[in-house]
């Protein structure tokens, strides 16, 4: 029984039903989650502190840089107490991908939806292909699935170092530490790095100097490795971002031994580097924890994560919803939901029917409908489920109590969950369902990985699920995920060779000129479950008479950047900021930089372009300037 809030029960066969004793089970006033601090309590506290204390800063940071896309964050900070009292995450850009897709030929969806995000350069194309082939009944041949897996392993190879060294890394660099946290610098000079033998930096000060933007060795090396992985991607997909070879029912890549060798030879360079990356991102948290225990609370959140899994078993994946729990279990990273540290389900149908998207604080009209009562397999879905959701944008004034962002509020079982590359490790560790292989092992609480020999010797490393998720553990998890994804790449490369040996080299289900015959005329609904550099990605669609009638995208940053939900539970960024202590010296308020909250926000690897993929009808925007929750300008 994975649902605590939604009134859903399961019979012996695992089919879900709605509890019959509740009249309107999905009503917002009927089925409510446990909410910690209510919005009223939060506001009352701010008012009280405002009256007693002049050191409350109410500031909007627009733009937050070193994130992908347009993000602004509003905070109320109590500089005396060193606390963030309130936070609002705002997505400040919208474009219109869902709206553009509705009414089109489904063959357009892959290339059009890819343009939702150029940072996660290939993931939308793949998620879209998954959704289309489920609707059209096209099962990719095994080689096609393996080539997809190889592309997407390469994509993670680009994404993780991009974040760790270009976006988040500078926050831990000498250039910033010496200015924002001068108390740490003498300690950094004294601190001998435990992993010096792996990454080569003697002291933490040396390591932090290498993180300096553009001039630091680690920054530059990170940039170069993003290029190497993008080359691997381009060998199979033509270009990055926006791959050119993802088609309904497989890929169109022409694969020869040369393609596999070019991929292989670049992959070979990555493992030594992965070892250094993990060593760096192990040493940084250990140093900061040793300096100040409060760093365990920067960006802290409860262990509530969600991930639909990634990289399919080519022989199990059949593109059907009916069998999705079977093929989902056989993914290289396991689907699942973790609530309060416990794995509550690994079934894709549970992930799907528990998903709802709310717009109370987003610039949309109420988007829910009762069009569909179930998920096509008999399991009940909510009126707020993507298959029942419309995209009805309605620009309005920025008002923290009403609407203040273009991001929606996706929730699972009405709980606030977060998504991330590291969530993939967490699910995989707990689910223990990894395909048999020589390199990765899940233990229930950790993931053990063997680093193949490169120029340095082979080694075994282990990622342990942290007790307390925070900014530093997200970064550490991302570093381990880098190795994990590249080992998935290696496993799939070996499979590709094996298939070539067997002559199983068809890459797509049907030729291009037969796609016409497979476009159904009846009503079909489908979902592509996939991953991005930041975790969860789904495309839900409906088509009728060969035309897309609905298209709904839920991205990881929509989940993480989400605003308050109908019960005023703050979204993950907001919650993480409010849990963040102000550790920097703010005795002079003019020198308040906001570094602690920036570390908290950047640890999620925000990616706003695809968070805000929605566009408006002919609307108007009325904006109240300087509105804040506490009513003080």
């Amino acid at each position: 029984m994975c649902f605590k809030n939604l009134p859903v029960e399961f019979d012996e066969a695992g089919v879900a039903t709605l509890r019959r004793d509740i009249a309107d089970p999905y009503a917002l006033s009927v089925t409510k989650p446990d909410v910690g601090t209510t919005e009223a309590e939060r506001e009352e506290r701010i008012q009280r502190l405002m009256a007693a204390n002049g050191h409350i800063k109410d500031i909007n940071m627009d733009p937050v840089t070193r994130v992908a896309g347009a993000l602004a964050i509003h905070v109320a900070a109590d500089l005396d107490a060193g606390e963030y009292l309130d936070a609002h995450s705002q997505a400040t850009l919208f474009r219109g991908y869902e709206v553009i897709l509705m009414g089109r030929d489904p063959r357009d969806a892959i290339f059009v939806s890819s343009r939702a995000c150029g940072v996660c350069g290939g993931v939308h194309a793949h998620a879209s292909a998954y959704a289309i082939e489920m609707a059209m009944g096209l099962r990719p041949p095994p080689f096609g699935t393996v080539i997809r897996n190889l592309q997407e392993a390469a994509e993670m190879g680009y994404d993780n170092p991009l974040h760790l060294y270009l976006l988040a890394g500078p926050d831990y660099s000498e250039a910033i530490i010496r200015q924002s946290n001068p108390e740490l610098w003498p300690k950094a000079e004294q601190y001998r790095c435990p992993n010096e033998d792996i990454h080569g930096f003697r002291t933490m000060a040396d390591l932090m100097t290498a993180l300096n933007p553009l001039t630091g060795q680690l920054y530059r090396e990170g940039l170069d490795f993003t290029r190497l992985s993008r080359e691997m991607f381009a060998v199979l997909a033509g270009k990055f971002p926006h791959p050119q070879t993802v088609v309904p029912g497989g890929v169109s890549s022409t694969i020869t031994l040369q393609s596999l060798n070019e991929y292989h030879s670049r992959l070979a360079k990555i493992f030594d580097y992965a070892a250094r990356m993990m060593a760096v991102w192990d040493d940084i948290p250990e140093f900061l924890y040793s300096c100040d225990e409060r760093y365990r609370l920067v960006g802290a959140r409860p262990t509530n994560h969600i991930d639909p899994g990634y990289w399919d078993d080519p022989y199990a994946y059949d593109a059907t919803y009916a069998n999705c729990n079977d093929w989902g279990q056989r993914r290289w990273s396991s689907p699942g939901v973790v609530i309060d540290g416990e794995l509550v389900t690994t079934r894709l149908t549970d992930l799907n029917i528990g998903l709802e998207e709310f717009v109370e604080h987003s610039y949309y009209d109420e988007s829910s409908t009762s069009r569909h009562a179930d998920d096509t397999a008999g399991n009940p879905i909510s009126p707020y489920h993507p298959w029942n959701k419309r995209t009805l944008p309605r620009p309005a004034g920025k008002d923290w109590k009403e609407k203040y962002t273009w991001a929606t509020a996706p929730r699972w079982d009405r709980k606030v969950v977060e998504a991330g590359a590291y969530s993939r490790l967490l699910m995989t560790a707990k689910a223990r369902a990894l395909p048999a292989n020589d390199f990765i092992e899940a233990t229930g609480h950790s993931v053990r990985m063997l680093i193949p020999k490169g120029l340095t010797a082979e080694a075994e490393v282990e990622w342990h699920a942290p007790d307390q998720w925070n900014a530093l553990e997200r970064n550490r998890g991302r570093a381990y995920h880098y190795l994990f994804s590249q080992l998935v790449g290696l496993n799939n490369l070996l499979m590709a060779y094996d298939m070539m040996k067997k002559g199983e080299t068809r890459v797509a289900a049907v030729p291009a000129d037969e796609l016409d015959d497979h476009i159904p005329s009846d009503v079909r609904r489908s979902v592509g479950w996939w991953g991005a550099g930041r975790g969860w990605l789904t495309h839900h669609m409906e088509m009728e008479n060969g035309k897309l009638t609905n298209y709904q995208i839920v991205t990881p940053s929509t989940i993480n950047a989400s605003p308050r939900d109908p019960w005023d539970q703050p979204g993950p960024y907001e919650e993480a900021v409010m849990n963040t202590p102000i550790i920097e010296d703010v005795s002079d308020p003019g020198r308040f930089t906001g570094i602690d909250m920036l570390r908290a926000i950047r640890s999620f690897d925000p990616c706003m372009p695809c968070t805000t993929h929605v566009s408006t009808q002919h609307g108007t925007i009325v904006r109240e300037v300087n509105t804040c929750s506490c009513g003080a300008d």
Partner: protein
Amino acid sequence: MARTASNGTDQRTPADLLLDFHGPVERYHDREELGDFGMPARAFMEDLLEPIAKAGAMSRLGPLEKVHAFWFAGMSCDGCSVSVTGATSPSVESLVLGAHPGAPRVILHHPVLNVESGANYMRPHEMALSGELDGPYVIILEGSIADETRAAADGGYWSGQGEEPWGPDGRMRTVSTAEWMARLAPGAAASLAIGTCATWGGVPSAEGNPTGAMSLMDFLGKDYRSAFGVPVVNIPGCAPVGDNFTETVAAILYFLQGFGPLPEFDELGRPSWLFGETVHRHCVRGAYYEEGDFAEEFGDKECLVEIGCWGPVVNCNITSRGAINGVGGCMNVGGACIGCTMPGFPDKFTPFYKRPPGSLASSTVARMVGSIMRPLRKYSNNNMNREVRWDVHGDIPSGWAREKSEPGVVSEISHRFYDKLRRSTDTGRNEVEPWGKRAEWTKERDSDREPDLTLRAGATSGRKE
């Protein structure tokens, strides 16, 4: 633009209309009040990099020491930024660090790369507007520009970056990307549009979108000229090849420094050395088209036109340049061209994976020509796959599949005739005796005599000795 009004046209551009609405800028952020919020290094990126990036006198190859580059993301996916971080010829870090000899250092103000956030990040933009900047600047736009006039009428925006005290009574107001472009474009040394959204509107302007998304040149109007007299420079692609952008920037800088040639741009402002040809002309599969040999299934190695490739009518260079560091390229690896560099993208190319109807005539012609050309080429190719020695001996010492390589009687006779024809103008056949060698040990190249079995025996016995 004032320029538009002064040259007598009364057509107001979207940029004019937006600025008409907002009126002039009267104030900027109070530097004192800003403090260090969002500035964790307590320094701008420019200052942080200065010790490494600033060139000494000996490295200066022209009048410019530095150029500011303000990068804006309008209705974008950030894919152009990502592409540019992948560029290697030159790389973005070499330009920013002043490590590309001859080019001035580029002070890049980029929301994805800079250290400073919030109002402090926007300060150099304000300085560019107020004329306080210590050098020339260019503006770079990725993403389309929404029609902001409608939203602005109600005090709102579609795509914003930064808050400025430009509202009534100095109140803070989110400033749209479009407004920044309209204000900064007249004073910019150059305005560069990167990617198909900024150059031609791209996917955000596709059918069904209500935002009125448009390109930078549509927004600024045809009379727009930069401070240096240049219309909008367009580097299209979705996403573009990163090197196409950095190379264009570098070419402009070389010219401004005085040592580079004037870069040529076509009638749409594209660098003509990059976009002057169709991508098909560079395509590694182009010769399949020439021989009328077309892919039927996804993954096939032949020309992709019949599975939906638009390459023959699309201006692009990705098949010769590769996507990143010379690697990849759509058709090179099996991806059919969907025209992502073109003003007509996407709606003139959809639905995708459908054979362009216009290709029927030309591919039929190619098939007919190919049906003649292919056997002839195969015939010569077989001949070239034999050593002269094998021809002489009538024997192929290959353990692999020799039957296939052995010529038939007709082929052997016709090749003898063909070789005569081919060598009819070979001056090596002229009636002069070389005198610097021993003639009797020299094997004649002419093969129109019988195989010399004695020579073969001699060679064999020679090895034995």
